[in-house]
């Protein structure tokens, strides 16, 4: 026997949702994209060049900045897990649902599956990132040769293994520098004009993380058959975070996410 909720309960919850929706979807005063190229990284604690088609793994401490600078037109797939509990991981459905947008740009944040912020997009020159369509696979590179035939699915399997993880741990991946958009008919389109030479992002770790990166062209990239250029991976030391920090204050959802971070650390 099913007990329906009362019309008054339904009306009250609907009105509450409409208030959240109006606030969440209204135009945000997010900043312009970061200027190209990015600044020098003289104080980096780690610099690594990842060849086209390859992957790397690294640990990033809370507060540290992960800077990613592709050597040219290429996409970078990212997966992230919390430390020490790696069952907490990157959650793209929550990231887009909680922020009422699939377009991640400077000022947005990336959520874990536990309602906490894993990474803040503190600098971003392109805003051309894809949450919906995943990376390359053995099937999508079947006709290519050499390092162009390497692919993100296998790279993520290898990267996870080197972090002590396996395929059950691999989340849906974030594709940075992948200008995939949904048109009015729901079809995916590739918009290369969103990318330019000198593109870069700075991702601030909001908890201790292990991260996997794959430097492979995206399957929807018209140049998917070409070996991508080297990717520069840079880790910069933590800086003081002001109370009015953009990513921590830009939206009500980000504020509540950071409250959940603080709660886990016993400070809220």
């Amino acid at each position: 026997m099913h007990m329906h909720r009362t019309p008054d309960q339904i009306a009250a919850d609907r009105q509450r949702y409409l208030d959240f929706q109006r606030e969440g979807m209204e135009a945000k005063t997010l900043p312009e994209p970061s200027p190209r190229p990015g600044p020098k990284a003289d104080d980096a604690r780690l610099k690594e060049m990842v060849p086209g088609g390859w992957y790397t793994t690294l640990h990033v401490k809370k507060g540290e900045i992960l800077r990613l600078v592709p050597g040219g037109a290429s996409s970078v797939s990212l997966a992230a897990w919390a430390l020490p509990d790696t069952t907490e991981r990157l959650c793209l459905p929550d990231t887009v649902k909680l922020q009422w947008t699939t377009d991640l740009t400077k000022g947005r944040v990336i959520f874990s599956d536990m309602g906490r912020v894993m990474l803040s997009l503190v600098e971003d020159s392109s805003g051309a990132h894809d949450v919906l369509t995943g990376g390359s696979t053995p099937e999508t590179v079947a006709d290519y040769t050499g390092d162009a035939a390497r692919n993100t699915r296998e790279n993520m399997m290898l990267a996870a293994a080197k972090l002590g993880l396996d395929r059950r741990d691999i989340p849906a991946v974030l594709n940075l520098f992948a200008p995939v958009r949904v048109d009015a008919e729901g079809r995916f389109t590739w918009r290369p004009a969103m990318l330019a030479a000198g593109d870069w992002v700075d991702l601030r770790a909001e908890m201790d993380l292990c991260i996997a990166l794959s430097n492979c062209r995206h399957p929807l990239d018209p140049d998917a058959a070409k070996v991508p250029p080297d990717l520069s991976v840079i880790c910069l030391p933590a800086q003081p975070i002001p109370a009015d920090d953009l990513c921590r204050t830009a939206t009500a959802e980000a504020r509540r996410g950071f409250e959940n971070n603080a709660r886990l650390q016993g400070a809220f």
Partner: protein
Amino acid sequence: MEMIHDIPARAPWSGIIRKGQTLRIEDTYGQQAIDTLFYNAHDHGERYSSQDTLRTQGAAYVTTGTAIVSNLGRVMLRVTADSAGRHDTSAGCCSCESNTVRFGHNTKFQHACRENFILELARHGMTKRDIVPNLNFFMNVPISPNGAMTVDDGISSPGDHLELVAEMDVLCVISNCPQINNPCNGFDPTPCRVIIRD
């Protein structure tokens, strides 16, 4: 042979669909999100992949003709009928934790799809690790060309259904969504029905 499973409002369910069998999912009352995951019945490490499914079809919603693709790039099932028109697979399932971010910390202690998934997956030896971005049948989440994304009123009517034919033996795990903070269930979660037939 036909097996009928009525899933109470707010409850989980799981079952095996053999290769060649048809899974029919009915939105008995209309506007009821039915959160769904698929696993290879013989190797739970192979499971539904929303990203591979969407990229393979080149479009952002699930409907008749969609191949349900695994994380190993194989077709698990195909959607052969859909009277509702469009289904989401980008917004994931609700959880106590994401509810606090979306709707305020006071919504933490409300039943959620991830609670259903965790308990139902435990029956099959799986854990929270095994929850991947799921299918949201009968959930209306339009994505605009400018990226805007929102859960809108459902477009399904009482009795709307969709059918999927299995191309491998699959374990289907469902959470009949208990969310009352957005329109995915018309703010009134209702029972639904699953039919498996040869």
